[in-house]
């Protein structure tokens, strides 16, 4: 296992009038053997970041480093990218497995790829891989059509592990699953981390799930990282107003209405954001969050700095590297 460093990753998608910046100079470090969570809402660019790192989305600029070694996809020849060093497990377990291939053959494909790599240990058998992710050997003979969502996700995980990657990226791997199955997958990932010492980047929109896996969490908004901190500190003491909104919006079992009680979501409650996310096709000066920000120029009209200066410039100087001029 090695560390993963992303330097100033920029991804521009589409062309012509529809072009927009999906990722804007995103930098992130995942130390060897640690787990970093990446949270944000849909369209914030978190999945695009994962896809760009493994070469599934075009990288406009920026660098991907494994232990300081440049493995940026598309730099030199196609094969020289991160190759098998970084593997990603994708969100939709239903389309993640070829319906025509048995589980065994799907895993064989990954094992053959691993055998081509120099300096890897002998690849595990399909049965061993299935056992690793808590599945029965007999499943190697069946096609994905008979498997449940949780089983498919375990097979997808086994396939990613078959090539013995240096870094594993998990993109919303539990969000389509039932609560109990979700917990089981999280337990499995924590076990695997213990036995294999995995370096992981965990992408998700559900902080409640991500917090059980990640040592630290980066919060993404509109293609930029706005706050990074160790998980406990980020949850206990969020600095960026968007992080606060995100935390406030997580549904809780014991914070709610009873018949006839007043609505707990007053205009200033933490989970409520005014307005809508900015249109990514229109470049916005200053802070990208200001059209929705509860402490920005919408609420306090003299905070004009938010509309003119990019708060990321001095983010390093603030606690949690918060990209906010008024981080508490």
């Amino acid at each position, binding site marked *: 296992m090695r560390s993963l460093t992303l330097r100033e990753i920029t991804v521009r998608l589409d062309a012509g009038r529809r072009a927009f910046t999906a990722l804007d100079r995103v930098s992130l470090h995942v130390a060897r053997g640690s787990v970093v969570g990446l949270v944000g809402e849909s369209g914030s660019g978190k999945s695009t970041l994962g896809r760009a790192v493994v070469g599934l989305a075009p990288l406009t600029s920026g660098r991907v480093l494994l232990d300081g070694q440049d493995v940026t996809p598309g730099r030199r020849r196609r094969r020289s990218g991160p190759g098998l060093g970084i593997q990603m497990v994708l969100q939709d377990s239903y389309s993640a497995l070829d319906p025509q291939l048995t589980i065994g053959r799907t895993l064989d494909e990954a094992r053959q790829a691993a055998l081509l790599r120099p300096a890897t240990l002998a690849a595990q058998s399909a049965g061993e891989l299935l056992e690793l992710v808590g599945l029965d050997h007999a499943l190697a003979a069946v096609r994905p059509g008979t498997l449940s969502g949780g089983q498919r996700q375990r097979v997808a995980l086994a396939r990613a592990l078959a090539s013995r990657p240096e870094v594993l990226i998990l993109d919303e791997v539990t969000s389509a699953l*039932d609560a109990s199955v979700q917990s089981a997958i999280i337990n499995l990932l924590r076990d695997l981390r213990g036995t294999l010492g995995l370096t992981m980047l965990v992408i998700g929109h559900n902080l409640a799930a991500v917090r059980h896996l990640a040592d630290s969490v980066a919060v993404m908004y509109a293609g930029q990282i706005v706050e990074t901190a160790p998980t406990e500190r980020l949850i206990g003491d969020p600095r960026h107003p968007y992080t606060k909104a995100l935390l406030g919006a997580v549904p809780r079992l014991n914070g709610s209405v009873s018949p006839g009680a007043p609505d707990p979501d007053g205009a200033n409650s933490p*989970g409520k954001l005014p307005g809508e*996310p900015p249109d990514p096709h229109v470049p916005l000066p200053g802070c990208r969050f200001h059209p929705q920000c509860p402490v920005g120029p919408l609420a306090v009209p003299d905070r004009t700095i938010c509309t003119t200066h990019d708060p990321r410039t001095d983010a390093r100087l603030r606690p949690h590297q918060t990209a906010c001029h008024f981080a508490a």
Partner: protein
Amino acid sequence: MAIAIWQAVREWRPMRGSVGEPRGRGQGGIRWRRGVVKTPTGAAGLVMVTALLVLSVAGPVFWSGAARAMNTEAIMLGSSSAHPLGTDALGRDILARLLVATRLSALTAVGSVAVGALAGIALGSLPAMLGRRAARATAALIELLLAFPPLLLMIFLGLVTGGGTGGAVIAFAGAMAPSFARLTQTLTLSVTRSDYVASARMLGVSRPRLVVRHVLPNIAEPLLVNLSIAVGMAFMAISGLSFLGMGVRSPDYDWGQLLNEGLTRIYDTPAAALGPGVAIVFAGVAFQLLGEGAIGAQADRRPARPDDPAPILASKPSVAGGDRGSATVRAENLQVSFPAAEGVLTPVRGVNLTVAPGEILGIVGESGCGKTLTGLALTGLVPEPGVVRATRLEVLGQDPRGLSPRQARALLGRHTAMVFQNPGTAMNPVLRVGSQLAETAVVHHGMSRRAAGARAVDRLRAAAVPAPERRARQFPHQLSGGTQQRAVIAMGLMGEARLLIADEPTTALDVTVQRQVLALLRDVNSTTGASIVLVSHDIAVVAETCHRVVVMYAGLVVEDLPVDVLRSGPAHPYTRALLACALDMTGVRDRRLPTIPGRPPGPGERFPGCPFVSRCGHAGERCATEPPAMEELGRGHRVACWHPRTGAP
């Protein structure tokens, strides 16, 4: 005849089929082949094609002697018992020649389709194998080839190759290749976008290997269907070329050539021309039917609907106290079943529930527990071929099952509204948001367009849509997901909705937006007094939003409880397990998360006792053999469990 070829070639339009769908039980291919036989068209096609095959093998073996035997005393004879189709200019029996010619006609047709399909598939899968620039060039080449009319292309190729058997084969192959290339290209594109191809790419699998291993097997089915239809077309087109003298030449002969010979004497001995004509049409129809049958089998792999769904175990109908007459919804022993290959599936096995006026009721459970179908059954929207049964079903005082379509529309449109998981598909993409909302008021309430438009803006405002005047003039795709869902809710508010059924309304939305939409639902409930049924897999969402919660498991209600009891002490072990599994923001971060071992029984399974018994930590002997009935535990709290738990979860 030229017209026939023209139509054959022109009508040969590739049909798209389903691609890479997950197939049940992993034997889709076998079931699909059986399915072809089951449809009458497919069965007829299969019989006809088999007959052709047998004839093309046996024809020359049995009749080539008769076909060659010249008889100068019997030239140009008409139909007789010795020569049913007459004889030709050299006195040879035309029927024998026709039967012998089956082989050459079939070989040329199948051969040319094989060549054309191979070329087309190779060309069509090239874009997926090449780099971006080369892929674009190949795609452009396919477009260019498609721009030539196939008939012209075929005649041109026929002329260039100088005709003959080989020329005809190449001519038809060349004419069909471009459309086959296009078909392959589009089918391939949809497969290459799937996650399993992305995963294979991450593993460094080369592009040609990706196409061979992952793409082609997943598009084989629709390609084969089109191949079958193309063979039928090839029979007609190549016969046509031979008829025109551009195909098979003497001394060889095929049906087209026989038709040519026969046509000159159609007024004297019509049988000589009719015979080959019928043969050509027979072959064309045979393969067309086979292809159609295969499409039908693909589209509908379900068996016929059974007459009577088997009786299903149901918990005892409950007697809910209080406002018995005035409930918004009352369902007793509600069942929804579907016919299936493995027998009758019953995803909803006997649900009892009531919704009081002004109440927000949550229905919660794991995927497959029947919660969505229960919601659909209340509005009469269970999809075909589902069967809804109940000892009693009342929605706003009416049984949705007994209503005429017109009455059902009135009930649905005026007083009930449905909100689905995906707001993007709930609205018509080509209509402006405002006019879609106005439509409801115009149709169901007889409002004028202008008044309805004003009400639409007003309702959008009520649903907390920012800048409602502007939004009303926009199209659905211009709205963000959260705003779309708010617009759908606004649509439900156009009438005097008394019941709103929301099925996973926030599952596709971000947490910050989810919070806003849930707040809007509560707001709608308190301002209009409408009852709301909120169906969700997320027990935290339900606990936050609802007044009362119904917990479903394996198609049954296992617990029905007020929301404060859900938090303080639910009685059913399954409800408690669901709560324990729910991830939240408190609690030790690195503790091992509780899970529920095992799987719930499937909709086709029968169980004599409690459905949860195999996963329950408190099960006794009775649980496996006797179904627990709903028992009243406290005020508004009922549970179906032999060993209800007490105390905090």
